[in-house]
């Protein structure tokens, strides 16, 4: 009990994936958390997915993570998003039950072989050039226990020096009802980590019974969005899925907020930390988008068996009476009863530019950091980092190759590369726009991109691997079939009868599928009629892959060409320990930046902001 290979600090979305992926490797892992009943807690909205975040959830799943599986089992609502904006942007947004989701995770964690859960607080990380252990104070005890370990994954979220604000009220806490942690910041400062303050916030919760549903727009679930996890063929909701409801703020709402702006924790100067640019508070929106007369609000039921509703789009740190007045000005919420006020939380985050692409600290070998503490926002972003950090902690302990996903391989690769190479100015949220090769990084093909990698690093179980291999074989077989079955003018009549254009030259079925007026169902019918010896896969996800491969063939090819073009830069590794100051000709700024960031590849070096292309050219000549 006093020695493990790896200790994970925290059991939020990052901690869970880190602990599980590390334990799956066969190493002994301890996960230390302040409250076992808060494992997998959802302190903000109970939503998993949405643009770019859905992509990450799928990637975590394809690599053997738990987030999407838990989502499928605790689902209350699901919707497709980004339809009509192209295949790259399409994904789904799920709502999960606030009480069931953590229970599911707690169950999984407690059953995971090789994983020990400890309730307590890590006071200090012990090191001597490399990480060698942690000092823990267990719940209900005043004594400190030393635990030996070779790697630590810190996933402390908003807990470091957390301060919660509601208007002028202020209390030391990491979030609603949870105590903050102080000692670890000192440890981090001692090893040279740069600490900054970020803030984030959440919305008030209102009672479902007090909403006038006749005045808000119901948005029904779309169960055909399918399961989140590749492992599941269906979702496992406890009751019929719930809708979610839409309403809007109006000028009166905005007036109430701007009149009392000075009382907001953000605008009174009480908080001077940086908040999330892409998930602004409602008072921020009113100030920054003053020309907008209305902002959309979504009402999301948090639990199957509870009246509490999350008011998406209304994150705030205004005093409670202002929150109440502003909420009541919204259509449908005239009689809304606030169960819990919205609040903002300030916390310490570390500068991710001091991490390597494996998420290990450049300052202390064996120390990995993942999740919100690295300056990101969002459960999915946290889970993704946790998974990668967990895998790499194992690789570090075993002294084996680290897992680094490239920008053309995964949104996870884009995120970590951004964090480490460019740093963060405000809480980092994933956006599809951050990925340059997003046509390749689709929601639907995450398994094709990543499951083989997860298998190699030991996080993909046999079930998942079998399922993946079968699908992959079927895609390849069907693809070959479509490509090598040809039609000619003699078949044209059948295609035309099905609503297609004339066939003039010898054309493969695959090429016919590229035509906008033909789809796979039609072609299946036609080829049966024509007695073509072609077997069509019955698997929906296989059919989807084939259709995307055909319809977007040209675009996919062009994007792949771009990837191939930069790959040589991405694969040129910069040797460790290079002394940039000694390289003749590099500009002073570049020497400084290269020295600080220590880029691992030429590609990464070229993305450092402010580095001149000529300096990258020069660098390429030295390595």
């Amino acid at each position, binding site marked *: 009990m006093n020695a493990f290979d790896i200790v994970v600090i925290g059991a939020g979305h990052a901690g869970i994936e880190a602990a599980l992926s590390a334990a799956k490797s066969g190493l002994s892992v301890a996960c230390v958390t302040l409250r076992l009943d808060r494992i997998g807690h959802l302190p903000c909205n109970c939503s998993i997915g949405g643009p770019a975040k859905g992509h990450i959830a799928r990637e975590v799943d394809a690599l053997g993570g738990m987030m999407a599986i838990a989502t499928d089992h605790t689902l209350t609502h699901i919707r497709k998003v*980004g339809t009509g904006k*192209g*295949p790259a942007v399409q994904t789904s947004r799920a709502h999960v039950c606030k009480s069931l989701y953590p229970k599911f995770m707690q169950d999984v964690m407690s059953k995971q072989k090789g994983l020990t859960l400890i309730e307590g607080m890590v006071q200090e990380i012990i090191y001597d050039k490399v990480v060698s252990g942690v000092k823990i104070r267990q719940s209900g005890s005043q004594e400190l226990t030393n635990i030996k370990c070779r790697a630590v994954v810190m996933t402390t979220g908003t807990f470091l020096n957390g301060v919660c604000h509601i208007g002028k009220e202020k209390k030391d806490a990491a979030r609603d009802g949870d105590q903050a942690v102080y000692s670890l910041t000192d440890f981090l400062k001692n090893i040279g980590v740069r600490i900054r303050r970020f803030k984030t916030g959440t919305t008030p919760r209102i009672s479902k019974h007090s909403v006038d549903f006749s005045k808000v727009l119901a948005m029904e679930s779309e169960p055909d969005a399918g399961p989140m996890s590749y492992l599941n063929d269906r979702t496992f909701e406890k009751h019929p899925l719930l809708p979610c409801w839409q309403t809007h703020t109006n000028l009166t709402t905005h007036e109430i907020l701007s009149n009392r702006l000075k009382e907001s924790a953000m605008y009174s100067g009480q908080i001077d930390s940086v908040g999330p640019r892409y998930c602004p508070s409602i008072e921020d929106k009113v100030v920054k988008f003053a020309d907008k007369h209305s902002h959309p609000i979504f009402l999301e039921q948090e639990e199957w068996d509870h009246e509490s509703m999350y008011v998406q789009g209304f994150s705030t740190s205004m005093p409670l009476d202002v929150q109440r007045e502003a909420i009541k000005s919204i259509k449908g919420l005239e009689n809304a009863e606030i169960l819990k006020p919205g609040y903002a939380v300030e916390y310490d985050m570390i500068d991710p530019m001091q991490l390597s692409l494996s998420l290990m600290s450049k300052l202390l070998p064996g120390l990995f950091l993942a999740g919100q503490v690295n300056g990101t926002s969002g459960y999915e972003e946290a889970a993704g980092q946790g998974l990668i950090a967990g895998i790499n902690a194992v690789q570090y302990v075993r002294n084996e190759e680290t897992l680094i996903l490239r920008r053309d391989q995964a949104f996870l690769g884009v995120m970590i590369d951004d964090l480490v190479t460019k740093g963060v100015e405000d809480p980092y949220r994933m956006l*599809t726009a951050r990925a*340059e090769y997003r*046509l390749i990084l689709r929601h639907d093909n995450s398994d094709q991109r990543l499951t083989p990698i997860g298998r190699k690093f030991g996080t993909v179980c046999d079930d998942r691997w079998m399922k993946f291999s079968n699908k992959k074989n079927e895609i390849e077989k069907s693809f070959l079939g479509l490509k090598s079955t040809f039609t000619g003018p003699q078949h044209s009549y059948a295609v035309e009868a099905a609503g297609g254009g004339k066939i003039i030259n010898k054309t493969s079925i695959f090429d016919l599928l590229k035509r906008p007026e033909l789809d796979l169902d039609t072609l299946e019918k036609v080829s049966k009629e024509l007695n073509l010896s072609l077997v069509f896969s019955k698997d929906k996800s296989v059919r989807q892959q084939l259709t995307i491969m055909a319809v977007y063939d040209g675009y996919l090819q062009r994007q792949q060409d771009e990837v191939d073009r930069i790959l040589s830069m991405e694969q040129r590794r910069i040797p460790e320990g290079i002394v940039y100051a000694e390289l003749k*000709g590099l500009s002073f700024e570049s020497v400084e930046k290269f020295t600080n960031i220590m880029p691992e590849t030429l590609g990464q070096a070229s993305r450092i902001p402010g580095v001149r292309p*000529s300096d990258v050219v*020069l660098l390429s000549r030295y390595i």
Partner: protein
Amino acid sequence: MLKDFKDTIIAPVTGVQPSAVAILRISGSQAIDISKKVFSHWPSEFKYRYAYYGTFKNSDDGLLIAFENNKSFTGEECVEWQIHGSLASIQSLIDLSCREGARFAKPGEFTMRAYFNGKIDLTRAEAIKDSIDAKTESHFRLASNVRNGKIYLECLDIKKSILKILAQVEASTDFSEEVGDLNTLEVSEVLTLLLKKLDLLLNSKSSSKLLRKGVRIALVGKPNAGKSSILNMCLGRARAIVTDIPGTTRDTIEESIEIAGFPCILVDTAGLRTARDIVEQIGIDKSKDELENADIVWYVYDASLGWSTEDQEVYGNITCPKIKIANKSDLIRLIPEGIKISTFTSQGHQDLMLATKKLVPGIDIENQIYLNERQTDLLEKIHNLMINSLHTIQNNYSSDLLSVDLYTVIRYISEILGESANPDVIQEIFSEFCLGK
């Protein structure tokens, strides 16, 4: 070449042949120190961009002008020495400087430093070479337009507009609930406008190609029609042997002249007839090849003998632009077909030049630019991608497909300007420069 980026380099910028004056340029961190050691009259109160007269260590005398960091051509400390244009003097000063730590510059190295130090973008660097290589004034003027930033500025402009569109595309995908859908009408208007700009740049493509290659004009016709006489008339000297024996010209002869601002290659060919021997046969075969390769054919016939069916047969089969020339028109009274020429009196010379001018693209020296092959290739790729994106948006395909093309456009523009280019390509571009540039 790149590894030695911090060396101080020296080379004559005026070429290596005896001349009245030669200029040596020395650039790099040691340029001033070395100059102090080589120039005997270093002023006590030295200032940049002032000329100082004095003697050099090798007993030559002349002027010295220094340019400070960022204000010189290369962007580094740079000194120019104006000395007597003696090869011996040039060589001894270079030797002296190399002993003090300088290195003889490689071709194009000064310009490459200017590019790497951010003084000029790649198109302006290339335009320096293109201006120097220009064979005609028009060529020089068009290259100068590029040297003055015409491609650079247009590309920056296009890039700015495209980035703006991309921002809209991205906002509408990631924040559709807040900002709504993409205004496709507005975007396609902007794209159409940008395409017009590109068309304007690419307008210079064909004249640039002709400026680069030269216009090949083949003189073709039956033996003794007077093709060689016309060549000589155009050159103003007796270049080709002229006799009244049919079939005198056996091998093709090439000479350069300038017409309408283009360098033209006049190709005199053997007269077309059934060959009398193997040598003539080879010559006639070459004439037929020339008919294929020429940009313009001057078809010459003997006006005193009239236009024959053989003439018509050959002439009718010529596919490129062609001019019918009635030579020896001083021997007849009738008005013949084609341009009347008398090589004895040079009558018709002007008419021939005018007629030829009409067959080459007009050059607008104010507005056109000289596009080299690299730039043309990239601009055409951009053009195709823009047409494709317009197609994408007008057919209501999803907006993120639009971004696939537009991001590639941005990359190509960066490549044109040298903001992001393959290191090997950059090396190759500068290796084609002449010494001292």
